[in-house]
């Protein structure tokens, strides 16, 4: 085999090796990152990018692979974060036990609520998942018994010493990377399994699956629970990364941002959601620091006011992508190729 062919087959492994080694790099990326790659600040941002890339990949299991438009994915992510956080702060459990139980809690919640919401199809399903997630969000923000910390959020206690503090950011980064690998592997494996082919059938035409004598409900529930469990796992990693839980992760806006990531990157593709999640997270952070910087303060108010709101820019960007780039970033190479070919044909 020649080198390009090897590269084509093994580039993900190569990228993984590079990602694993990043904390040892002192390379500065001005404009992209504030400090050198290996600095705690940069690693923290990179880790967040990886977590959201993975989260978007898991969410696309529903949206792009099974055709389920869920507006309640934040709930399962937050379930992982808050359940683990509460087990740490309230029950004083060992972290690894708390994390395992947190994951289990997210999984159980997804199984319970999924079995109810999937009684609806299409947009009705979207609305019901949204309503459930909203209930969770209200619950967290109203702070029953003073355990969730309400608007303030929850600071985790009793984390292992090797996972706390600025000098251990690299460890957190590697955990985020591991979570990404787990998610990618789980999604890829599931999509290629016989169940995955049924999901594809459901996405294309649910009726036809029924005609084949299969009940889509059970298959959709499997997708829902798997995606929910992956999100809960992401919630646990997020708890480590940020040292606690914030109510922002329970809101419908959080789910919508996942949706934006997936559509941005390219729904239903292997790498698209990951790319979208990384790009979105990075852009949001850069825009936020840009908004706080002096560069923007000097602009006339017509420009300054909208630019000071990352969500505004992301919302507008999203609409533009829906129009101009239906396949997302992942569809871009193919589109360019087609254009190049048709231009070549004209010439």
């Amino acid at each position, binding site marked *: 085999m020649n080198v390009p062919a090897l590269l084509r087959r093994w580039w993900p492994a190569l990228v993984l090796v590079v990602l694993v080694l990043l904390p040892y790099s002192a390379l500065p990326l001005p404009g992209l990152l504030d400090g050198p790659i290996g600095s705690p600040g940069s690693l923290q941002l990179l880790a967040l990018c990886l977590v959201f890339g993975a989260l978007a990949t898991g969410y696309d299991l529903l949206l792009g692979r099974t055709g389920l438009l869920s507006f309640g994915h934040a709930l399962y992510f937050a379930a992982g974060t808050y359940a683990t956080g509460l087990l740490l702060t309230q029950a004083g459990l060992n972290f690894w036990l708390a994390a395992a139980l947190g994951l289990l809690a997210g999984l159980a919640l997804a199984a319970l609520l999924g079995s109810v919401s999937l009684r*609806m199809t299409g947009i*009705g399903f979207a609305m019901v998942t949204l309503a459930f997630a909203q209930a969770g969000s209200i619950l967290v923000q*109203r702070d*029953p018994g003073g355990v969730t910390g309400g608007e303030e959020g929850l600071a985790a206690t009793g984390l292992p010493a090797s996972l706390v503090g600025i000098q251990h950011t690299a460890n957190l980064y590697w955990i985020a990377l591991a979570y990404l690998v787990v998610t990618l592997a789980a999604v890829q494996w599931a999509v290629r399994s016989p169940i995955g082919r049924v999901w594809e059938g459901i996405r294309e035409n649910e009726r036809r699956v029924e005609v084949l004598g299969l009940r889509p409900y059970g298959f959709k529930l499997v997708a829902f629970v798997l995606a929910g469990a992956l999100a809960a796992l992401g919630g646990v990693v997020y708890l480590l990364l940020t040292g606690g839980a914030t109510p922002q992760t329970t809101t419908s806006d959080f789910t919508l941002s996942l949706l934006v990531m997936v559509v941005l990157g390219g729904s239903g593709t292997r790498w698209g959601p990951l790319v979208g999640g990384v790009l979105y997270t990075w852009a949001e952070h850069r825009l936020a620091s840009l908004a706080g910087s002096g560069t923007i303060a000097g602009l006339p108010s017509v420009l300054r006011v909208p630019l000071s709101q990352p*969500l505004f820019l992301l*919302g507008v960007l999203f609409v533009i992508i829906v129009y101009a780039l239906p396949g997302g970033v992942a569809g871009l190479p193919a589109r360019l190729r087609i254009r190049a070919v048709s231009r070549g044909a004209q010439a």
Partner: protein
Amino acid sequence: MSTVVLLGVTGLGLGALYFLVASGLSLIFGLMDVLNFAHGALLSVGAYATWWAASHSFGFPLALLFGTAVGTLAAVALELGLIRPLYRRPREQVLATVGVGLAVPALLSAIWGADARTFPVPAALAGTFTLLGASVPVNRLVLIGAALVVLLALRLFLGRTRHGLVVRAGVEDRAMVTALGIDVRRAFTLVFAIGGAAAALAGGLAGLYFGSVDPTQGSALLIFGFVVVVMGGLGSVGGAAVACVVVGLVQQFANYYSTAGLGDLSVVVMLAVLLLVRPSGLTGRLA
């Protein structure tokens, strides 16, 4: 007893807001299969426009009219500019409304700040009146009255006008409506205008009810609007009317008689139970 009366009227007032949001959502969804995530944004546009006009000494009725008009125009612009070009691509239409739903509140808070702005409540609507021994804020009545007027107007529109006939037929079978030589896209713009007007009116009245406006009000109310729409049966205005009364009352009473927040939860639990028993909602219309 007086507490029950107060809670009842307040619950109905809240239900009235939900109805104003849900009726438009339901019509838009029924006719176009578009779940309008920008509906909360339309509500916020109406709320800020009403607030702006009221703070510039327009007088409350005129300010409300202004806010409703601005919301209506925004809804029409949304339909013509963003929704129509994506005709026959319902999923992309929903995504476009998601983008608008994110961008508009962000823009509002960029212009007027993320914090709540006090709504200048006119003296005539600031007081209370006595009903069966309870002193009830007047604004509750305004809300209920407005919702009833809108309900009546919608019923007349749907039942008595040709456009209403087209909308009802389109909810059933859009393609067949066009096959009778009717341009159903005009009905799309129309339901967006109606939905936008009702949502913007809800925004102005929400300012009155809460005493303030803030950029997140829209999305908070939108979610209960969704709950009402699902409960009432997608596409059914009558179903939405029944469901909003139930939701408003349950929420108020549960919030009062248990810890705060439980009312909101019980609404969602009620939705879950209803879906388990009757997946098609109260009116039995299929999703």
